[in-house]
C-alpha cells in the first residue's frame, strides 16, 4: 500500500533579489570583520605586507648607495617581483588561506550549522561568503600593491613623479591592481571549492601550486591550462624567459578577462551544487 504523498513545497514564484541582497549584506557585515580584524587575519597581513619590505630595502639602498638603475629597469624589476613573489607566492597562498577556510574553517570551529539554520539559500551563502572573502582580500592586498608600486618609483623623485603623471605608471598600476583582483577571483573560487570538496585541502592546494609554478616550463599548449598564464598575460610589463622557459603567446585581454570570469562562475556554480547537499558532521574533524 503506498502512503499518501506529502504536501508539496510552495513553488518559487519570483526571484527575491532584494531579499538576497539584504542577506548577502548581512553576511558581509558578519564575515568581512572576521576576515579583517580577527587574529587569523594576522597571517594575511604578514603575507600582504611582506613584499613591501624588499621595496623598502630598495629605497634604503637608493638612499645610501644611490646607484639607481634606469626607470624602465625599475618597471622590469617590479614586474619580476609581481609575477614571482606576489602572484605566485603571496597572493596564491593568501587565497588558499582565506578561501579554503570560508566553509572548512566554520566546520573546524563547529559553527557552520548557524549559517545553515538561517533562512538563506545555500547558494546565497556561498556567494555571500565568497564576496566577503574577496572584499577583505582586496582591501588588504590592493593596498599592498599600491604601496609597493609607489615605493619602486619613490627613489626617482621628480623623474618618478613624471612617470606617474605623464608616463605609463598609472596605467601599469591599474593593470597590476586588476590582475590582483582577477587572481583573487579565480584562485578564490577554486579554493572555495576545494575547501568544500576535501577534508584536508592542503594536498590539492600544493598540487595546484606546483602546476602553476612549473607551468612556465611546460609546452605552450599546457601553459594555457592554468590561471597564472592568463594573469601574467594581463601584466603590463612582459618578462623575458630564462634559458629553459617556454614562452607561450600571451593571451589577449579580451580572452583572459572574460575567460577567468567564466571559469570563476563555473567553479562557484559547482561549489553551490556541492553545498546544496552538504551535511553537518563535525565528528571527523
Amino acid at each position, binding site marked *: 500500500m503506498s502512503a499518501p504523498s506529502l504536501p508539496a513545497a510552495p513553488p518559487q514564484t519570483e526571484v527575491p533579489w532584494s531579499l538576497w541582497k*539584504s542577506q548577502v549584506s548581512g553576511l558581509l557585515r*558578519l564575515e568581512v570583520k572576521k576576515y579583517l580584524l580577527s587574529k587569523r587575519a594576522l597571517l594575511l597581513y604578514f603575507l600582504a605586507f611582506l613584499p613591501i619590505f624588499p621595496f623598502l630595502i630598495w629605497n634604503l639602498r637608493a638612499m645610501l648607495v644611490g646607484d639607481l638603475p634606469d626607470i624602465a629597469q625599475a618597471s622590469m624589476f617590479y614586474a619580476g617581483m609581481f609575477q614571482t613573489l606576489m602572484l605566485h607566492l603571496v597572493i596564491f597562498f593568501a587565497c588558499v588561506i582565506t578561501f579554503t577556510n570560508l566553509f572548512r574553517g566554520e566546520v573546524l570551529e563547529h559553527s557552520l550549522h548557524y549559517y545553515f539554520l538561517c533562512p538563506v539559500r545555500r547558494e546565497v551563502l556561498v556567494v555571500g561568503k565568497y564576496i566577503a572573502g574577496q572584499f577583505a582580500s582586496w582591501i588588504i592586498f590592493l593596498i599592498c600593491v599600491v604601496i609597493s608600486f609607489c615605493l619602486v618609483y619613490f627613489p626617482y623623485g621628480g623623474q618618478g613623479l613624471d612617470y606617474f603623471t605623464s608616463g605609463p605608471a598609472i596605467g601599469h598600476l591599474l593593470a597590476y591592481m586588476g590582475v590582483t583582483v582577477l587572481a583573487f577571483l579565480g584562485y578564490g573560487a577554486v579554493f572555495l571549492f576545494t575547501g568544500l570538496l576535501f577534508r584536508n585541502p592542503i594536498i590539492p592546494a600544493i598540487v595546484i601550486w606546483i602546476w602553476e609554478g612549473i607551468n612556465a616550463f611546460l609546452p605552450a599548449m599546457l601553459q594555457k591550462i592554468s590561471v597564472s598564464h592568463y594573469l601574467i598575460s594581463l601584466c603590463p610589463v612582459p618578462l623575458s624567459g630564462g634559458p629553459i622557459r617556454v614562452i607561450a603567446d600571451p593571451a589577449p585581454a579580451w580572452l583572459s578577462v572574460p575567460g577567468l570570469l567564466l571559469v570563476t562562475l563555473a567553479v562557484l556554480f559547482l561549489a553551490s551544487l556541492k553545498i546544496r547537499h552538504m551535511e553537518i558532521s563535525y565528528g571527523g574533524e
Partner: protein
Amino acid sequence: MSDSQDIIFRNVSKFYGEVLGVNRVDLNLAPGITGLVGPNGSGKTTLMNLMTGLLQPTRGEISILGLPPDRPELLFNRVGYCTQYDSFPRGMNGFQFIYSFLRIHGLVHPQAEDMTWKALEMVGLQDAAKRKVAAYSKGMRQRIKLGQAIAHQPDVLVLDEPLNGLDPMARAEIIDLFKRLSEKGKHVIVSSHILHELDVISDQVVMLSNGYIVAEGDIHGVREEMTDVPMQILVRCDKPAMLASRIFQEDHAVEAQMHSDGQGLLLRTRDADSFFLLMNRMVTQEGLRVESVAPADDDVHSVYLYLIGNQGGSSS
C-alpha cells in the same frame, strides 16, 4: 488538522555509511510539546538534524509544516533549532550572536535589534548581552543558543537537550517558556534526559531506541497499550487487605503490596479495566471507602524503563 500544520516523517531512514542513524521512521507530530526520549545514540539528534535539513535522509520523505527540509530559505522562517553543539562563532558577544544571524535572515537593523532584545529578555540574558559568549557559563551558553533559536519567532522550535547545564530556577523558567509557546499553537520538540520534567511538560512523547521508534503518542495512552507489562496502581482505602484478597481471586493480579500504615495498597495487574470494575463493585456493594486511586507507572520514566531500560544506555 491539515497536514501542513504537522511535522511528518514518512518511512525515513538515515545511515552513516554502514552505521544506522534512524530506520523506517513514520511520525506525524501535531502542535504542542513533543518529548524525544531515548538513550545515548538512539537517534534523537539524528531525527532533529533530519527535521532541520542539517542531515539528508538516505530514504523517505520529511515535511515540516508542508515545507521540505532541503529548502532552508523557506523552512527557517518558521523553524528554530537549538542544537547540542556547544560552539559559537569566534569573538561575538551575546547580542551580536543573535543580531548578526537575524541580519542574515534579511531583517533590517531596527527590526533585528528589537527582536534581539526581545529574545535576550525571554532567556534572561539582557544584562550579559554585551559580554563575550566565550566567557559565558554553560547555562548561559545554553540560554543564548535558545535565544537565537527563538529570536525570529518560529512556529516550530526544535531543541536538543535544552535543559542541560541549567540550574533549577533557569530550568523552571525555560520550561515555562516552552509551555507558553505551546499554548500559542507552536510545535516545541524537545529531547532531554531529564525524564520527570519531560513528563510534566510533554503533550506527547516519541521514544527511540537503536534508531527505531519504540513508542509514540500521549504517555498515558502509550502505557495503556503496553498490555504485556502489568500496570501498577496505587489505592488508598480503608480495607486494603480485603481488596488484596479479592483481586487475587481474579486471574489478572500479579502482585499486591500493603502499605505499612494499613491504609493503602500498591498492586500490579495485567488488566486494569477489570480491576477498576471490581473496585467499583466493592465500593457500591461492600462499602469499600476509597480515598484515592492513581496509576503508579504511566509516567515517562516508567514507560522508558519498561521499553528501553533493559536495552542499555544511560538516562537520569
